[in-house]
């Protein structure tokens, strides 16, 4: 796909969005019966399921930390999630890298010192990928953590942005990602505006970095509204069941 088609002369992207527009977000919490907290999120066609267990006794005693809770993140991708079927490897390095990125993102946000000698497990299952799997997974994890009642300093909201044709674009889909557009993923603490994670795996001119980060952060703030709404909704319905 040539770069010209990424944004049409009318200023529309391949999927009909405007450059600064997020994809449709659809999320809900408490989708799984066994987990302490769980969430499902769809950002466009990227779908992710998150489950949180804990705080609980660590499965591996050796990993136990005396002053805080241990965060354990597992990230897996369904074999039918993308165009090509991939045979799942037992220890896929790429998946492990993503898991450790997510782990480090949340370690600073979760009040881990509240639960010394315990473990919090975050399991992420990506069901379908259409670009932005990482930030979708982070958003799903935030929802599931809130659902599990794990104390956090703030939400973690993540979003991606890229730069093409002298224009920053928000929330890239698969076609855009694979067109070699520099893509930057940002995880933001919306209240303080602090960035907890920033990932860029291709070349981007330094001058353009600032506007792209700015755009991604704006996306995160929009997503925060969305996530917040979902949580308020589910809390309301939870409150209702308790009051009954």
């Amino acid at each position: 796909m040539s770069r010209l088609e990424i944004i049409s002369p009318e200023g529309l992207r391949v999927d009909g969005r405007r450059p600064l527009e997020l994809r449709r977000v659809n999320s809900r919490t408490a989708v799984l019966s066994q987990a302490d907290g769980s969430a499902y999120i769809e950002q466009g066609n990227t779908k992710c399921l998150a489950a949180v267990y804990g705080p609980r006794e660590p499965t591996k005693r050796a990993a136990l930390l005396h002053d805080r809770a241990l965060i354990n993140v597992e990230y897996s991708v369904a074999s039918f999630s993308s165009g090509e079927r991939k045979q799942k490897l037992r220890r896929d390095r790429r998946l492990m890298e993503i898991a450790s990125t997510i782990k480090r993102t949340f370690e600073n946000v979760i009040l881990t010192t509240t639960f010394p000698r315990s473990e919090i497990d975050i399991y992420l299952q990506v069901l379908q990928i259409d670009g932005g799997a990482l930030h979708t997974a982070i958003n799903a994890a935030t929802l599931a953590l809130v659902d599990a009642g794990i104390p956090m300093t703030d939400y973690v909201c993540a979003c991606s942005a890229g730069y093409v044709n002298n224009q920053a674009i928000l929330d890239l889909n698969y076609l855009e990602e694979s067109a070699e557009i520099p893509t930057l993923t940002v995880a933001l603490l919306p209240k303080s505006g602090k960035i907890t994670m920033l990932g860029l795996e291709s070349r981007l001119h330094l001058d353009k970095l600032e506007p792209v980060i700015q755009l991604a952060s704006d996306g995160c703030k929009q997503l925060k509204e969305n996530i917040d709404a979902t949580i308020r909704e589910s809390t309301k319905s939870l409150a209702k069941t308790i009051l009954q």
Partner: protein
Amino acid sequence: MISVSERDYITKGVDVSIRADGRSRLDFRELVLETGMITQASGSCRVTLDGGTDILVGVKVEVGSIEPEVEAEEADILEDMEQMDQDDGITMVKDKDRGRIICNVECSPSATRIFEPRDIEDMCNEYSQFMNRVLNGSHGGVDLKALCIIPGSTCWILNIDVLVLDYGGNLLDAIFMATRGALHNTRIPRATVEQSDGRVEFDIADEETEIIRGWEDVPLCVSLNKIGYRHIVDAAPLEELCSSARLTVAVNRRGNLCALQKGGHGGIEPSLLAEMVQTAKQIGQTLLKRQDAALREEEERIAAGKDPIGFGAASRH
């Protein structure tokens, strides 16, 4: 782990046909079935049982070599299929004019924290093997011959990936239900074979698609759990813990058994075994009817262009 009193409570309940969730011994739970929510897959289906079991099946079709494990260009050299087959007790692909089905059951970590990792591996392997055996046999339903593109070399391979998202008991029945649903939903691109100067070539038209022939004949599974001296269908997690033996029976539309497998750590008397087989067959027939009706509804929904409810089911409340 289950306490003695809990076990006693459930066992006594089963004895008088009253179960913890209000069902009687041979009642199946409410189930929600949806198809086609994974657009990247050739076919998909999700089945949720009332108590939590949540299965997502994605089917991906790909063009591959008829002979397993051997690369296409080497395939026709020096190979003896008969030799390969006699190792397997199951009647595998005997001839070179059939496609293949590869099943793989995987547990999403979210569903399985209650089991030991090794048990999960064993369980997934057992279920994968069971599915492979049932679906690749002559009795599996799917018309494997229709999956052949060029006899002797190329065929469609159906990769059936089962993802267990949540565990609420009775996984195997739900897996088969979802698999049958996903196969109903699967569309294969039409492949046209051309002969040009001695070489056989084929062309795949992505726009024109075909359904999987014979999906209706795919069997469903009914697992019966023996608790005390009685047996129940569609066990919940606690009931599975109380069960001394499990019998899984695969039944197809014609009322024939397609597979029989026992699990669990207890024994069953032969007379009870025969009775359980009969019960399972009847329940299987009812389930098949229920599913066919649900699949028809899904077909109508898709035809009407409505979005699947998906995990966004919260909006229903």
